[in-house]
Each structure stands twice: as C-alpha cells, then as structure tokens.
C-alpha cells in the first residue's frame, strides 16, 4: 500500500466500484415504483427520447418522471455528502454536517423567503429559490462560526451547539412564515420535510450546475483539505493560505447545500453518514475521499428515495424521514464512540 502506484490503482478501483454501484441503484430506482418497468423498457425509452421521438405514456413515466427524480436524488445526495466532507475537514469535527450546523435550515429559510418574494412563477422557482437558499446558507454558517469562535479558535462543542440552536430558531421562523402565507405554502410544507416529489429536468439542471461548481473547489483543493487536518497553524506553516481556503471552502459547501435544499428541503444525516463511512473505509486522503463521498452520497440518497416511494406504496413518505431513521442512530453511535476514546 505504500507505493504511489498501488494507491493510485486502489483509488481508481474504488471509484469505478462506486460508480458501477450507483448505476445499478439508479436503474433500480427507475424500475421499481407503483408501476414496475423493466430494464429493457428503461433503455428503450431513453433511446427513443434521445432520438427526439414523440413520447408514449409509458415512456413519459420513465423519461419525465422517474429518471429526473432518480437523478435529482443522486445529485442531492452527492451535494449533501460533499458539503459534509468539506465541513468535517474544515472544522476537524467528525460530527459536522450541513443539517447539524444549521446550514440546511438557513438555506431553507432563504428559499422560503425567496418563494414568498417571487411567488411560484417558473423563473423564480428555478433560480430565485436557489439564490435565496445560497444567501441563507452563507449567512447562517457565518453566524454559527462566529458564535462558536473563542479568540480565533472554533470550539468543536460550541460549533455543534450553536449549529443546533440556530437550526431550530431558523426552522421556527420558516414555520412561522409558512403559517402566515399558508395559502401559497401548501406545497412548501411537504418540501421542507425533505422530499423529491417536485422533481423535474429543470431542477436536475439547477442542482447539477450548482454541484458541478461547488465540486470544483474540493477537487482543486484536495491537498489543502488534507493538510488542514494538521491544524490551522501547521497548515499555514506548510504554505496554505488558511483564511482564503476557509472562505472558498465555506462558500462552495454553502453552494452545494443551497442547491440540495432548494429542491428537496431539509434532508438530514446524509452529509454526516456518508463521508464518515467513506473515511472509515478509505482513509483521510481527500483526492479519494471527495469523489468517493459524493458517489456514496448519491447511492445512499437514490436508495433512500426508493425506499420512501415503495414502503407505503402507493403513498409516498418524505425521503427525509428515511434518512433520519437511518442517521439518528448513526449519530448516537458516533457520539458514544467518541466518548469512549
């Protein structure tokens, strides 16, 4: 394992393995549902759609409903996992994730305010809401970091406490706004609980674009992410521009969280669990950890969404419930393990 060649091979194999798994889960996500479809139907429908043919009802189910939904689930999962990796590296805190830090709530409030301001018009929904979510996410993380700072240092425990406190406060404000504007907010309630029901190709484009932008930074800064684990002072001694690095990473993490939240509401624990599991298996090298976590996040999310659709079929449950059921115990396990150390 020591030779560079071996680790490069291992890295490639791991990523290929995850990508294959993701494709399998995506196909399963399309195939299962209230109306099952076969793999042959899926491939045929996609082929016909690419060919620009008029869609049959069966093809439309696959191409316009299931496919964007599954892709969106994957993108949201990848976004949340990516944000989790970034927050955990930045704060050197294994419990950091967008949900616990309050960033998701901040993005949610920003999105809700944007929705109230621009209404449900198409352009507003597709661009205004993500912009509002991004602003909300940035302001929230700035506030949480500020609250948790003691003399230039971010205390790990204060960070989590501040995050949870801000998260509840912002969620309450969001609920209040929903009550006030309840006539136009019926759909928002379901959205905020964490759901992918409103999936469309436009959303796939918006979230995909934000993820692509946000993923650029961790891929380019992978070495800095590694070095930052040695602590701010040491990273500075090794040539990392620590302040700029933090700004850039916080901005890109907020961007991907905003993308995820503006289409799927508050989905907890994906950003916590997947980077963690990936790190346990693959170690701390961010050149591997960043893409692997994103892939793993996509896999978890597509699978969770599948479960959410079929467990009470034809009734659908918010996918946030599924991730919370899995993630809550996982979080407790991490806490207990941390204390034993």
């Amino acid at each position, binding site marked *: *394992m*020591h030779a*560079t060649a071996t680790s490069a091979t291992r890295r490639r194999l791991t990523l290929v393995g995850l990508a294959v798994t993701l494709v399998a889960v995506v196909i399963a996500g399309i195939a299962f549902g209230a109306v099952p479809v076969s793999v042959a139907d899926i491939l045929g429908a996609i082929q016909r759609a690419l060919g620009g043919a008029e869609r049959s009802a069966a093809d439309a189910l696959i191409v316009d409903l299931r496919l964007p939904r599954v892709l969106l689930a994957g993108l949201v999962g990848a976004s949340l996992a990516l944000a989790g990796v970034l927050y955990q590296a930045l704060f050197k805190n294994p419990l950091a994730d967008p949900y616990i830090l309050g960033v998701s709530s901040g993005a949610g409030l920003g999105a809700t305010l944007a929705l109230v301001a621009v209404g449900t018009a198409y352009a507003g929904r597709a661009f205004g809401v993500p912009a509002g979510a991004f602003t909300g996410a940035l302001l929230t993380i700035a506030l949480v970091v500020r609250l948790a700072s003691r*003399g230039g240092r971010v205390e790990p425990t204060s960070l989590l406490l501040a995050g949870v406190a801000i998260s509840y406060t912002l969620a309450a404000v969001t609920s209040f706004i929903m009550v006030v504007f309840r006539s136009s907010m019926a759909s928002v309630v379901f959205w905020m609980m964490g759901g992918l029901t409103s999936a469309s190709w436009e959303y796939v484009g918006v979230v995909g674009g934000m993820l692509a932008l946000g993923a650029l930074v961790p891929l*380019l800064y992978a*070495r*800095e992410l*590694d*070095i930052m*684990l*040695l*602590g701010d*002072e*040491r990273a*500075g*001694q*090794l*040539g*990392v*521009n*620590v302040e700029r690095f933090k700004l850039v990473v916080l901005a890109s993490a907020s961007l991907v969280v905003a993308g995820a939240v503006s289409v799927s509401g508050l989905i907890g624990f994906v950003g916590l669990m997947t980077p963690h599991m990936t790190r346990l298996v693959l*170690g*701390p*090298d961010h050149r591997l950890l960043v893409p692997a976590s994103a892939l793993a996040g996509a896999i978890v999310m597509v699978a969770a969404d599948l479960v959410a659709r079929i467990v009470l079929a034809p009734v659908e449950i918010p996918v946030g419930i599924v991730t919370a059921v899995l993630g809550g115990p996982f979080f407790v396990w991490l806490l207990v393990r941390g204390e034993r150390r």
Partner: protein
Amino acid sequence: MSATLSFSAARVGYSGRAVLSDVTFDVRPGEFVGLVGPNGAGKSTLLRSVTGAAEKLGGSISVLGADVERMAPRQRARLVAVVPQNPPIAFAFSARAFVEMGRHPWLGRFQDLGPDDDAVVSDVMELTDTARLAAERVDTLSGGDLQRLTVAQALAQQPRLLLLDEPISHLDLNHRLQVLDLVRSRAEEGIAVLAVFHDLDLAARYADRVAVVADARASEPLPPPQALDAGVLDRVFGVRAVVRTDPVTGAVAITPVARRADIDIPRRGRIGMVCGSGAGAGLMRRLALAGVGLHVGALNRGDVDRAVAEALGVDHLDLPPFGEVDEAAERAVRAAYSSADACVVCATPFGRANLGNLRAATEAGRPLVLIGDMGPERDYAGGEATRLWERATDAGALRVHSDDDAFEALRSLLDDEGTPGD
C-alpha cells in the same frame, strides 16, 4: 553576507499585548542560533512571529530581505520551515503521505508530486531514520516517530530558514543527537537555523550562538561560553550552576547544582577550610553554592578536593603532585585564613606534607570548627596533628561530628560575625 532572518526592534505578542520587545538580531546563512530561557519567557512566541502565528506589533521581521508580513503563505513556506513543539494531531495518513505534505508549497494547483518531489521525500525520510515507517499510519506511531516525521516534513520544504521549537522533546537520547546532527549538517550546507532549546548543554553544543530570552527581551546572540556563564544562569534561571568545558565534547557543559531559592543563607561571609583527599568536597560544595567565600588552603594537583575547588571556582593554593606545604605556602594560607570569618577543619588525614594547612588554621586566630576525632588513624605526622588538635580544642574550638553539624555551626558563626556591634 546578508542575513537570512533579521529581527529589527521587533515587538511581538498576542492580541495586541507584547510578550517580547526590542528584539534585534540576525541569523546568517549557515548559522545555527539557539534560543534559551525560562518557561513562558517568549521563545516560542518569537519563533511563531516569523510565520505570522504570533503578532508583530512593531519593528520589522524579514527573511532574505523581504518583510515576512507581506509574504504569501506559499512563498513563505518555500523559504521558512517550522518544526513545532508538539507534533500535530495526526490523522490516518501514511507516514509518507504526511512527509509529502512538506512539498505543498512547491506544487501547483493542478500538479501532483513528480519524480523530483518523490526523491526529496525519500531523501529526508532516509535522513531522519523514518524511511522504514513509510507505510505506517501516523496515528499509530509514537510521539518520537511523529516528531522525526515532522522534522522530515519540514526538511521536505527545502527551506532556507529552519525554525525549531524544542524539536527533540519526545526523542530518545540517540535520536536527539541524530536530529540535531542532521540540523547541524543542514546548517553547514547554508540553511539558517533558529532553535529553541530547553537543554542548555545541547544548546551550547550545537548552536554557534545562543540568545537568552528573559524579562520580555531577547539578548544579542553570543557564543555559548559567553551566553551561558554562571552569572546568566543565576540571573535568568535562578539556578546556581557550574559551567565548565566538557572534556569529551569540548563544548560548554552546565551542571545545575541547586536552586537559588533553596540555598540562600542570611549573610555571605568568608570561611577558611582545611581539607584534602575528598574529605572537604561535600561541605565545600554546600558553602560555595550558598554564596560563601572560601579559601581551602594549599592542595596538591590530582587531589579530589582540589578538582572540586577548581570546578566551583573556589580559592586555593596550588601545590605540585606530592608537594609539601612549605613555609612560604603556609604563610600564604595563614594569611588567607586570618581574613576569614571562621575556619573549619574537615575530616582529612594529616601527614608531613599537609600539616601546614592545619597549623595555619589553628594559628589564624579565627573561630574554629573541627570535624571528627583526631587519632592514629588520621595522624600520619608522628603525633604533631594530634598535638595541634588538642591545643585548638583547649583554645575553645568547636567539635562537631558531621558535615551537617559543621554547616550549621559555620552558619551561626557567620550570623554572629554579621551582627553589628559584635
């Protein structure tokens, strides 16, 4: 040649409060400068100010002529490498990946480690004796291994200036010397080194010059014998120490003997001591470190007590090996004893050669303390020593039976002597 690191009237500290002021000195290429001083004096603060981890509140700090404040971290990391006091908290990186981080300042954003970088990393791991750990996970290694890996990481930066903050605290004896020899050899290749030391002997042995950090100041770095004399140790560390040249390493060797707080006695007087054959070493040490002036008579070269007197810087009269205390010597010794506040005769055996010391003490006319009994087992002068002993006893000399009792007796004699109007 111009300086690699230059402090000029620098004021450094934290949150606007100065820890050190008016620091002015240079470290030149190829020079190894040591920083010593009591805990909390600001040695680490001074080092950290170079990389911006401590604030510079005034003056200037420059590396190769460029103001360190204006340098981008990456640019600075190509010139300055740091080995911190405590190795960083390690994550599950392999030892090699950990050392590779030292190449970061030399790599572009889209660039991976090339063959040259790999060669540098292999080289520094070889030099620090960490090559065999390459595949190990750093979070499973000992503190000493991690410290050597941190040294390797810093050397992988190929810096022009190396800052070491007590770089050997977790190392065993062998690796201490190994790491310091390595740093020394890098200095000889032209790197400038500024290193904090807690071990004064090692500072004296490895540094070309030593600066003492104390009382919110850093002294001008001086060669070890001048920087670390007994006066500095007394003033800065509050320690009575013997400073001599180590016969083996040839460097200044410091033997701290006692804390000043433990040894001060009310008044420092002067004592004449009759000793020899090692019988006086213990008492001589205690009195000398207590600040009492001593004259220990005429002693032969090669005598144990003479060696102790030499190391402690105590006055004595030199005799050649097996030489006798002749009349002239006896006169000189008597004169010295006469000017003392009191005299003491240690449990030394007497023969014809050293009888003169005993006679001088009994005739000096000062209060006299006699240790032990005199008899055939101590008197090899044909009964002459016994006669002097009895005469002194009759004249009121104080008889004690241990060094402790003698020390107490002399202490009270000095107190009496110091009382005004006595």
